[in-house]
């Protein structure tokens, strides 16, 4: 039954639209700045309307040595990493969603411990090194393949599914794995889509690990390269270099746009999985 428009509904939408305006503004601001020639960005404060369409900041960014490789590297990490993370998280979450499984509480305790206690940088690095991942692409997604936070979220989603769901399949002799694949996953698309998004974005934005684990310049990720790009501009205050790139602000804006736009496209792509009512049965309230 269609819901009628109401006063509350209008107020609701107005507030939401206002919020959307405030959240989109910084991005809009960056976009405008990135297309503005240097001189016109000084002392402008807030920006309302674009005044020009200057591509020099983008040329500077795209001319950067190795940018194509950086895009490729980051893309590989995102794809491989998301696949690995999704697989491990899903099977882990599913297996742990059975409340009556012996040893489950112990395992949950162990998981919570990893969430609360972080091993330091040096021990982690030594472990990654001992498995031979230093300066290899795998170092950017294998050591942090599972995010415990999201695994627990997934587990709770699975846990909330009714027991009856896979019962008939099990009675027919289906393996647990088959139940997972053919029955549970298809109705869990919202949470799967969410987890895919979170992991993908996480891998895309990864910076610190890329600095720590990767030494070869040709294996640099996009974020690392972008940061290096305006390192020079920032260091002008310390010792003038002979080169004068476009100032930090326009480069930074172009760099953010360049390094963010691709991943922003991931969400609209996944949005269709957030449609209500895909569930066959009711979610436990």
């Amino acid at each position: 039954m269609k819901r009628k428009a109401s006063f509350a509904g209008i107020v609701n939408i107005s507030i939401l639209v206002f919020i959307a305006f405030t959240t989109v503004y910084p991005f809009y601001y960056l976009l405008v700045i990135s297309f503005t020639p240097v001189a016109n960005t000084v002392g402008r404060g807030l920006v309302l309307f674009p005044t020009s369409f200057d591509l020099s900041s983008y040329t500077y960014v795209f001319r950067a040595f190795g940018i194509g490789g950086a895009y490729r590297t980051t893309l590989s990490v995102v794809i491989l990493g998301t696949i690995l993370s999704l697989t491990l998280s899903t099977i882990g979450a599913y297996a742990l969603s059975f409340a009556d499984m012996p040893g489950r509480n112990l395992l949950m305790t162990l998981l919570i411990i990893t969430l609360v206690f972080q091993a330091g940088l040096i021990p982690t690095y030594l472990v990654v090194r001992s498995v031979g991942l230093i300066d290899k692409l795998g170092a950017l997604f294998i050591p942090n393949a599972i995010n415990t936070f999201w695994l627990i979220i997934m587990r709770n989603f699975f846990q909330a599914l009714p027991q009856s769901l896979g019962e008939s399949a099990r009675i027919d002799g289906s393996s647990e794995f088959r139940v997972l694949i053919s029955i549970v996953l298809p109705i869990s698309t919202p949470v799967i889509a969410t987890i895919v998004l979170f992991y993908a974005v996480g891998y895309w934005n990864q910076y610190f690990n890329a600095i720590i684990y990767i030494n070869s310049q040709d294996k640099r990720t996009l974020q690392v390269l972008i940061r290096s790009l305006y390192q020079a501009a920032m260091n002008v205050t310390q010792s003038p270099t002979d080169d004068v790139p476009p100032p930090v602000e326009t480069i930074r804006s172009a760099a953010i746009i360049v390094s963010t736009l691709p991943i922003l496209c991931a969400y609209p792509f996944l949005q269709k999985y957030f449609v209500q009512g895909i569930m066959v049965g009711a979610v436990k309230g």
Partner: protein
Amino acid sequence: MSTKNNQRKKLSNAVKRFIPLYILLIPVLLYYSIFMFAPMAGIIIAFKDYSFNLGIFGSPWVGFEHFERFFSNGSFRSVFRNTAVISMARIFFAFPFPIVFALMLNEVTAIKLKKVIQTLSYLPHFISWIVISGLLFAFFSSNGIVNQIIVALGGTVKPFLSETKLFVWFFVGSAVWKELGWSAIIYLAALAGVDPALYDAATVDGAGRWKQLLHVTLPSIRSVISIMFILSLANVLTVGFEQTVALINSSVMSVAETIDYYIYRTGLQQVNNYSYATAVGFFKSAISLVLVLAANWGARKIDPDGGLW
């Protein structure tokens, strides 16, 4: 005869059930052992005087010396207080916002509008704090937009960004705004899983939008909210470092300096103080663990299935 067969089938089914699950868990446990637990052995650095030459296991044991040093440090009290204030503000004040936002968005029936608003709402998540602090300055500095309006209306310039009393509001408020849309995603996913039949049934029963929100929507996502709350306590004392660096200035240092920033500013992450920094991290984790356990206990009291365990 059929009961006995059924019983046997049930037993073999039960066994059949768990073994494959254990098998599924193997790669996961492998991952945790190698990359989570093995490095965690390094936490004992917090109780040692770590030096590179001697390595993790060869370095001498010093017990609680680092912790004593941390607690007896004159700055400890204020730094810890700042961290606690900001963390509490985040938990109690900032936590509900994404939920409310998700609920509001859920009420929008025009699908296209809903999608557009949602996409626009999570954009700030991708923007670095430096950029956002620049915008804050443009708004709230002595020459910023807000003060220009104030002056135009006849008032005096208010130094928003140097007021220690306002800092926590700016800090938490900007963090809320930045993560609002992104944090709402998980709640929106939960809301998408609510069976529309429940809403239909409620409508038939005569419940209006508001009652449906209270009695159908909220209960349906109650467990997600509870889990998110407990999990958010897991790293509660780790206040965003990047955000602190971007937003801090000398005038508000006394309320803005959190544990992590203090360690960074005083150079305690330097090599001769590595075990000290580890000890501080351990201390933060210990507090988080207590909070997680407490919250979990509380959640289970309300709903036996609401906890982590």
